[in-house]
């Protein structure tokens, strides 16, 4: 059973001239979201479609029953499949009593189009426009939350589009170059293997929001030393770093304990609001 898979993979690698960029996006198209394990009342959920660069994107606006000061988290998800993969995170953050919006970038889930670095920037801007226009979210009530690949969108927004109350960067990589250099153990120049730069490390220098970096000490995919640390060190004040012992790339809330994780997020949002 494994032999055909291995041979196919080897042939794919041998004969497919490509860029790394395409592999950063791990899309999975679906006809309908399943929201696995959902415990949020249907009355609080709204499946939203909006336009970005001519493509119809899909997302969920998750309303809090008693929204705290109209606070809204714009959650920029990682690269895995679609919204369904992040629904556990949605439920954890929804418990904070804060509105939340997450969406699929173009090419992911029900969203049309093909994913790309520039597409992520456009999609992030379109999501923020939607929050402003339809839900009347002011910038000072907005918290941008990026997870893994999603930091490309959230850090871009905080750098060039909006000054939110706060920015949270979980498991952020420094750039596509940081990933390739560490994997190769050679100082391969930027853009040899990628067209896009995905350069969070540079872009974070110009954000205008308090930044909380959360990273797992045992992240075996986006190593803290040459990723989360770099993002943190390059960011202007005010900023804070939470290096979670024993946590890997995908399990930070669970290793911390959900309550502790929620408290950390809550405190950072409060800190940002009070500035």
């Amino acid at each position, binding site marked *: 059973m494994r032999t055909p898979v*291995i041979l196919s993979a080897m042939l794919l690698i041998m004969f497919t001239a490509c860029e790394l960029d395409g592999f950063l996006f791990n899309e999975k198209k679906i006809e309908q979201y399943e929201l696995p394990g959902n415990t949020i009342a249907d009355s609080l959920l709204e499946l939203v479609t909006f336009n970005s660069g001519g493509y119809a994107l899909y997302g969920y606006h998750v309303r809090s029953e008693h929204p705290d000061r109209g606070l809204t988290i714009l959650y920029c998800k990682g690269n895995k499949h679609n919204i369904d993969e992040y629904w556990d995170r949605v439920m954890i953050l929804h418990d904070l009593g804060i509105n939340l919006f997450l969406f699929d970038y173009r090419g992911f889930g029900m969203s049309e189009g093909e994913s790309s670095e520039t597409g992520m920037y456009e999609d992030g801007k379109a999501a923020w426009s939607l929050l402003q226009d339809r839900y009347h979210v002011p910038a000072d009530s907005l918290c941008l939350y990026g997870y893994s690949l999603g930091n490309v969108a959230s850090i871009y927004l905080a750098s060039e589009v909006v000054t939110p109350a706060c920015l949270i960067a979980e498991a952020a990589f420094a750039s596509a170059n940081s990933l390739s250099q560490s994997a190769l153990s050679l100082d391969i120049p930027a853009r040899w293997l990628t067209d896009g730069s995905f350069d969070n490390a540079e872009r974070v220098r110009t954000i205008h929001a308090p930044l909380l970096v959360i990273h797992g000490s045992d992240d075996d995919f986006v190593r803290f030393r040459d990723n989360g640390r770099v993002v943190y060190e390059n960011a202007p004040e005010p900023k804070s770093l939470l290096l979670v012992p024993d946590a890997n790339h995908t399990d930070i809330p669970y290793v911390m304990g959900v309550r502790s994780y929620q408290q950390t997020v809550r405190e950072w949002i409060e800190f940002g609001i009070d500035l």
Partner: protein
Amino acid sequence: MQYGMTLAGSVLVLVLFGCAAHTNLEPKGEGEFSASFGIGGPIIEAFETNMPVPYATVGGEYGITGKMDANATVHLLPFAYKVAALDAGVTWYPLLRDTWQPTIGLQPRLLIMASLKQDVPERVKFYPAFSVSSAWGVSAGVLYIGCDVVGTFAARDYDDDAARMLLSPFLGYRWNIGEDLYLFTELKWQGANVRSDQLAVEYLAVGRHGAVTTLFSIQRRF
């Protein structure tokens, strides 16, 4: 995200440490020539299994003197990713095989990589490399051990503390499979001095270091 990056990892390792060719073991003889084709690379976790990266090379060796060969290897697979890679150098054999005495090969060379893409900030990179090998005649073939060392001139952009030298010990056996035709089977521990447990690529590692690599190479003497 990690799961989705396994194939990305397999792309990245195409130029891992820049070496997949076998080491020269014995002098060709003055004026003699041989050509080789090799395939093999680090074993990575992808598609929920372990698979070797199909890193292919073609090379040639020419006997300059009775104790020194010139050699060059073109790395084929990186071309698919718009990276040209070539290593070239010489092998000097200060000690030749005699009963239990091994043939010692010292092989300095230069690994040259060039991007074939437009608008890259730096087009060519050079990495010095050095290999040492000991080869004994065992049965009808040759048993050999050795180590590759690849150096980098510059620190990586995001990690000032990254290793500047990559050590890769290897063990192999050269089979005589026909007249002037040899098969090399080699196991290499690439980057044995480098932590490899927190990278985008999931290598088959030893003690969280380096990547286990398999190599199969055919050599024909002319």
